[in-house]
């Protein structure tokens, strides 16, 4: 879809104008809603050591580790998508975050050092080039 321009040449009616106007509004709504979900903050949890980020629910997320994460997956992402995952440790703490994705900055091993009980935080940034996911790991507190 694309936005259409109404150029009256004397033969159009008010209905024609309204249809173009409404069509443009529908198109805009579709496009904006397609962007809105990407910037929503998703709340995710691991299960059986797998942590999945579903971009349909938001490409950014917060999670509290309650177990070791040995599998990290991002689904429903598109080429050029990126996001940030904010990570905390539960009361036990010391959980690891392991991934085979290429880490271009920082060290995933630092995630285990996040202060437990939600007192500390770390972040993992990611980018998808359509084939691979690239990770960036922040300092942690």
């Amino acid at each position: 879809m694309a936005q259409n321009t109404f150029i009256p040449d004397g033969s159009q009616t008010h209905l024609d104008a309204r249809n173009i106007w409404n069509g443009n509004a529908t198109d805009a709504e579709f496009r904006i809603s397609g962007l809105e979900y990407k910037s929503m903050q998703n709340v995710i949890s691991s299960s059986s050591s797998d942590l999945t980020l579903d971009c349909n629910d938001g490409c950014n997320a917060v999670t509290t580790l309650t177990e070791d994460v040995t599998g990290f997956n991002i689904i429903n992402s598109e080429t050029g998508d990126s996001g940030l995952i904010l990570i905390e440790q539960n009361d036990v703490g010391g959980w690891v975050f392991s991934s085979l994705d290429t880490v271009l900055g920082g060290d995933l091993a630092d995630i285990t050092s996040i202060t437990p009980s939600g007192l500390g935080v770390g972040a993992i940034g990611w980018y998808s080039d359509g084939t691979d996911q690239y990770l960036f790991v922040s300092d942690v507190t």
Partner: protein
Amino acid sequence: MTTYQLISLSPLQLVYKSLNGLPPSLTRESAAPQTPEGYSYVENLPVPEEEAPEGQYYVRDLTTESYGWKLEDIPEESIEAVTRIQMRDTLIEEGLFDSVESIIQGMPETTDQEIIDKKKMNDWWNHAPNFRRDNIRIATMQAALGLTDEEVDALFLSASLVD
């Protein structure tokens, strides 16, 4: 809390860098994390509180079960060389200095070769910057002084401690 150490199983050795986000060492209450095939976390044990027996000391012992400690005999330190001043000081302390001088002075000078040998020995004794444990003249002097290998080793060890 338990401290775990990441190791590779073949060859059996410590891993010093993080492995796909698994830290080389971590301390926590939970059991060790799962690792990729060929790797494992083992418990990093503290040094035993019990003092090591006389003549032994604790050294690290890495197995597939733990990164612990084992007892080993303290190796006898072997000194390969000392300076001339260190050795002469030690011989003075041990009361052997004059004996060495006497042995050299008493070397025969009946043939040209004996004269050369004595001159060389005298030159070595008075001017060599270092005395090497494996030098043939040390063995000659050891025999002349009637010392055992252990006693000569002890002399070199003492000499090495001279400032």
